[in-house]
C-alpha cells in the first residue's frame, strides 16, 4: 500500500459522492445503478472488499500500520472468510472522512493498546463472510441454481453438481448489487486455513527499495516545508521572536507563530527551514514549571508512597492489617523514569488549507482524532476536512496524539492554497513527547511465622496518562483505571496473576507539567517490574525457588506461559558457567506473557544478555510468524528502555535531545530471543505490546541471580551496568 498524494482518493469517488444517500445506509437496490465503486470503477462487494475484474481483491484496512503487522493480520481475517486467493490480495486505507460520510462504516480507526486486530476481528471476519455469500449468490443467480449447491475456494466459485466454475472477478459486479446478507455464520477456528498461518507481510517489497512513501517523503506540486520549535517547557509561552533576523536566509518564505508557544519557519526545503529556525532568536516564558527538575519530581512522587489518600485498583481481604500483624515484613522501593517513544520517523504532517477545504497527509495512529483536530484547527466543518494516512515509520503510541496535526494545519492556514509539509527535527521530537509516565512504587509483603505470604501491598505513586491526555477516561472520583494495567482482580485486559489472601494495590496520583503518553506497553512496563522483581525478592527472602514460589500463587493461564519458558530454558538445570537466569510473567493487553532471561555480568558491571525465552498466549494467533517478530522486537524496545531509557527534566524542560543522549539497543547487545507462541483459544489478546512487560523484569531478576545485587531503578546505565 503505497499511497502517493496524486493518487489520493482514487477510491470512493462515487462512494463519497453518494454519501448521505441510500448507499450510506447499506441499502442495495436489486437493479439500480447504485453500486459503490472504487475510483478505477471496480465494484465494492461491501465496504471492506473491492474485487477487480482481474480477480484482484482489495481489502480495506481501517487501522493504522506502523510496523506491527496488523494490516496483514486483518487482511488474513477477511480473506479467511472470503475464501479468496491470498496471492491476489492487496490493501488500502479508507479515510476517516469517507468513513464518517458513510455513517462510520469502518468503525473505530484508532490503533493503540494492541487492539488493532482483537477489537475488529469480529466485524472484519463478518465482512469477509458477507462478501463471500453475495459472490456465491451472484454466481448461483447467473447459473439459475440454488446457492446452497455452490461453494467457493481460492476466489473460484464451483457449482458442485455440474462442476461449473467462475471467479470472483467475473461475478463481483452482480454481487455488488445484492442486498448484504445478515448473520452469516463465521468459521469455527479449527477450520481456519489462512488465519493461524505465518504468511509473509503484505507490505514488505517497497520497504527494500526506497519506494515506500512515508509521510516525511510526501511531495506535492508547489509544496513548501516547515519546521517548528515549540516551547521547551511544555506549559511555557512565547515572549518574543525576531523573524527579521532570518527572513533573508535562502529559501525562507515565512516565519509564523503557532499557537501561543511555537514558532515555525516555512521554506522551500527542510534543510533551509531547519537552518533558519536554528538561527531564529526566540524567547519563551517558561512560567512556574521552569522551576521543575527531575529531583523535584522524584521528591513529589516520594511523598505519594506513604500518602493517606490513594485510589484502589485491587483489594482482597485486609492487606495492611495482615502486614501489620505479620511476623516478618519485606519492603522495597522501585522507580521508573520518563521515556521517549523515539519513533524512527520523526513527527510530520502535510497540510493543505483553502477557504473551503482542509486536508492532511501523513502518519497517524488515530485517523478520526486527527480528522477532528483538522476540523477544529482549520475552523471548517468536519465534512470539509479529511486525513490521508500513510504507513507510520514506527508509532509505539506516539502517533495517537494529534499535536503535530494541529500544528501542520495552523501553519498551512498561514498560506492558503499551498501544501506545507511540517517536519519535526529529532530534537523537537525528543523534547516534545507525551512521555512514558514517571512512577515510583513501594512494595510490602507480610510473612507469617511459617513462611507464608499473608499480605501484599503495592503502592504506586506517580503520573496518570489519562489525566494528561484523556481526562474523559478518568473515573468520576478522579481515579485513573489505566494505571492498574495488569494489576486488577479480573479484567480480561490484564489481571494480577497472584492470588494472595490479603492484597492491596493502590495509586497516589502525582501529576506534573510534563505530558505523559501511551507508550508501547503503557503502564505495564513499570507495573511488571514492580510486581515481578518484588515477587522475586520475596521468594528469595524465603529461600524458595523462584519458579515454584510463583506457581504456588499463579492463576492457571499465567502459570502456563511461565512454565513453558521455564521448561524451554531448562529451569532447574544448571545454566552455562557464569550465566544466571531470571523469570518474569505478566498479563497485558489481553495476553499472557512470560520470559526467562539468561545473562552474565562481569565484575566490572559488563552485562551480556545471552538468551531470552519468551512465551505469549494471545488466545488466537492470527499470524505466528509475525507474532514471533513482534515479540523479538518488543524485547529490543523493552531492553532499550531498561538499559538506556530516561528523559530527565531540568528547568522544566526535557534534557535529552537526540539518540546520543537517549540511546537505543544495537544489534550487538540484542540477545537471541526464542519465542513460544502458545494460543490457548477462546479469547483475543493483543500482540504488539504485551511482551514488552516481561523484558525488563526477567533481565533484572537474572542480573540479581548473577550478582546478588537488586537494581530497583531504571535505566541501568545509572546503576553501574553497561553492555559487554
Amino acid at each position, binding site marked *: 500500500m503505497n499511497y502517493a498524494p496524486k493518487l489520493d482518493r482514487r477510491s470512493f469517488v462515487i462512494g463519497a459522492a453518494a454519501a448521505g444517500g441510500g448507499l450510506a445506509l447499506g441499502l442495495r437496490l436489486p437493479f439500480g445503478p447504485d453500486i459503490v465503486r472504487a475510483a478505477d470503477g471496480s465494484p465494492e462487494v461491501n465496504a471492506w472488499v473491492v474485487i477487480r475484474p482481474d480477480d484482484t481483491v482489495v481489502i480495506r484496512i481501517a487501522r493504522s500500520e506502523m510496523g506491527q503487522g496488523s494490516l496483514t493480520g486483518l487482511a488474513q481475517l477477511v480473506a479467511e472468510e472470503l475464501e479468496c486467493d491470498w496471492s491476489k490480495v492487496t490493501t488500502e486505507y479508507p479515510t476517516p472522512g469517507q468513513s464518517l460520510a458513510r455513517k462510520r462504516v469502518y468503525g473505530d480507526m484508532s490503533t493503540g493498546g494492541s487492539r488493532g486486530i482483537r477489537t475488529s476481528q469480529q466485524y472484519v471476519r463478518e465482512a469477509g463472510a458477507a462478501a463471500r455469500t453475495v459472490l456465491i449468490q451472484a454466481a448461483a443467480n447467473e447459473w439459475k441454481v440454488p446457492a446452497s449447491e455452490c461453494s467457493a475456494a481460492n476466489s473460484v466459485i464451483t457449482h458442485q453438481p455440474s462442476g461449473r466454475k467462475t471467479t470472483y472477478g467475473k461475478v463481483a459486479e452482480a454481487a455488488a448489487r445484492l442486498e448484504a446478507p445478515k448473520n452469516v455464520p463465521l468459521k469455527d477456528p479449527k477450520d481456519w486455513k489462512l488465519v493461524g498461518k505465518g504468511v509473509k507481510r503484505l507490505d514488505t517489497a517497497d520497504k527494500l527499495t526506497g519506494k515506500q512513501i512515508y509521510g516525511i517523503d510526501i511531495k506535492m506540486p508547489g509544496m513548501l516545508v516547515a519546521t517548528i520549535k515549540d516551547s521547551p517547557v511544555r506549559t511555557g509561552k512565547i515572549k518574543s521572536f525576531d523573524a527579521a533576523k532570518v527572513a533573508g536566509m*535562502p529559501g525562507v518564505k515565512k516565519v509564523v507563530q503557532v499557537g501561543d508557544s511555537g514558532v515555525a519557519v516555512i521554506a522551500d526545503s527542510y534543510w533551509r527551514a531547519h537552518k533558519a529556525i536554528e538561527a531564529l532568536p526566540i524567547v519563551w516564558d517558561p512560567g512556574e514549571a521552569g522551576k521543575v527538575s527531575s529531583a523535584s519530581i522524584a521528591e513529589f512522587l516520594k511523598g505519594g508512597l506513604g500518602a493517606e489518600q490513594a485510589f484502589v485498583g485491587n483489594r482482597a481481604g485486609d492487606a495492611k492489617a495482615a502486614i501489620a500483624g505479620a511476623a516478618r515484613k519485606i519492603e522495597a522501593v522501585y522507580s521508573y523514569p520518563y521515556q521517549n517513544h523515539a519513533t524512527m520517523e520523526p513527527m510530520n504532517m502535510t497540510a493543505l488549507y483553502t477557504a473551503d477545504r482542509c486536508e492532511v497527509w501523513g502518519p497517524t495512529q488515530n485517523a478520526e482524532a486527527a480528522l477532528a483536530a483538522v476540523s477544529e484547527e482549520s475552523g471548517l466543518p468536519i465534512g470539509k476536512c479529511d486525513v490521508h494516512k500513510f504507513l507510520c515509520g514506527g508509532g509505539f503510541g506516539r502517533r495517537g496524539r494529534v499535536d503535530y496535526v494541529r500544528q501542520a494545519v495552523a501553519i498551512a492556514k498561514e498560506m492558503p492554497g499551498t501544501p506545507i509539509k511540517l517536519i519535526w527535527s529529532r530534537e523537537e521530537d525528543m523534547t516534545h513527547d507525551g512521555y512514558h509516565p514517571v512512577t515510583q512504587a513501594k512494595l510490602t509483603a507480610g510473612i507469617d511465622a511459617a513462611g507464608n505470604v499473608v499480605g501484599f501491598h503495592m503502592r504506586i505513586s506517580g503520573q496518570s496518562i489519562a489525566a494528561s491526555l484523556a481526562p474523559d477516561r478518568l473515573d468520576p472520583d478522579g481515579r485513573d483505571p489505566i494505571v492498574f494495567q495488569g494489576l486488577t482482580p479480573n479484567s480480561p485486559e490484564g489481571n494480577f496473576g497472584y492470588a494472595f489472601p490479603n492484597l492491596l494495590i493502590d495509586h497516589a496520583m502525582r501529576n506534573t507539567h510534563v505530558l505523559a503518553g501511551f507508550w508501547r506497553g503503557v503502564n505495564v512496563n513499570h507495573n511488571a517490574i514492580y510486581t515481578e522483581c518484588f515477587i522475586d525478592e520475596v521468594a528469595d527472602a524465603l529461600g524458595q525457588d523462584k519458579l515454584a514460589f510463583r506457581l504456588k500463587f499463579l492463576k492457571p493461564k499465567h502459570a502456563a506461559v511461565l512454565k513453558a519458558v521455564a521448561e524451554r530454558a531448562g529451569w532447574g538445570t544448571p545454566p552455562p558457567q557464569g550465566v544466571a537466569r531470571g523469570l518474569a510473567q505478566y498479563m497485558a493487553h489481553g495476553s499472557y506473557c512470560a520470559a526467562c532471561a539468561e545473562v552474565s555480568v562481569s565484575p566490572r558491571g559488563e552485562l551480556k544478555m545471552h538468551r531470552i525465552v519468551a512465551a505469549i498466549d494471545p488466545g488466537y494467533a492470527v499470524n505466528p510468524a509475525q507474532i514471533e517478530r513482534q515479540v523479538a522486537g518488543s524485547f529490543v524496545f523493552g531492553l532499550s528502555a531498561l538499559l538506556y531509557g530516561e528523559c530527565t527534566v531540568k528547568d522544566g524542560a526535557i534534557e535529552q535531545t537526540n539518540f546520543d543522549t537517549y540511546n537505543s539497543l544495537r544489534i550487538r547487545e*540484542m540477545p537471541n530471543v526464542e519465542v513460544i507462541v502458545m494460543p490457548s483459544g477462546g479469547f483475543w489478546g493483543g500482540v504488539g505490546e504485551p511482551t514488552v512487560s516481561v523484558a525488563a523484569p526477567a533481565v533484572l531478576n537474572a542480573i540479581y541471580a548473577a550478582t546478588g545485587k537488586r537494581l530497583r531503578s531504571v535505566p541501568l546505565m545509572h546503576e553501574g551496568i553497561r553492555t559487554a
Partner: protein
Amino acid sequence: MTTLIVNGQRHDVDVEPDTPLLWVLRDTLGMTGTKYGCGIAQCGACTVHVNGAATRSCSVELADVAGKEITTIEGLAANGVLHKVQQAWLDHDVPQCGYCQSGMIMAVADLLKNKPKPTDADIDAAITNICRCGTFQQVRAAIHAAANA
C-alpha cells in the same frame, strides 16, 4: 553548482555547499528512500555509499561529496534485480515499519562487500544502526542468508 553522481546519474545541484548530502538527496533530487532519523550520525537511517563505502549522509556536506560516486537505496538493485541483501530481506520478512531499513540494507551491503562471510562478531562490530521496531534478530538471520546466497 555542485556536480553529484548518484546511482550513475550526473546531477548539477544549486544549493548551499554546507547542505548535508541527506537533504540534497531528499529535497533537491527528490530521492526519499534515504531517511532522516537523527541528523547527527547516530542512527544510520541515512546510510548511503560514497565511493563504495557506507556513509551517514546526514553528516557529510554536499561540498565533501562533489564528483564522488554515490549509491542510494534506489540504486542498489541492478537492472531490476534485487541486490542479494534486499532479496534476503524479502525472504526473511525483515522490515517492520521499514523506516530504518534503507540505511540498514545499505550498511549490510557494505559489510558484505568487505566481509563476504561475516561472523556474528563482524556483524556486531559493523552494524550499529538503530531500529526502534527491533528487527535485529531477522536482520542477523538475513545477513547470514545473504552471505550464503
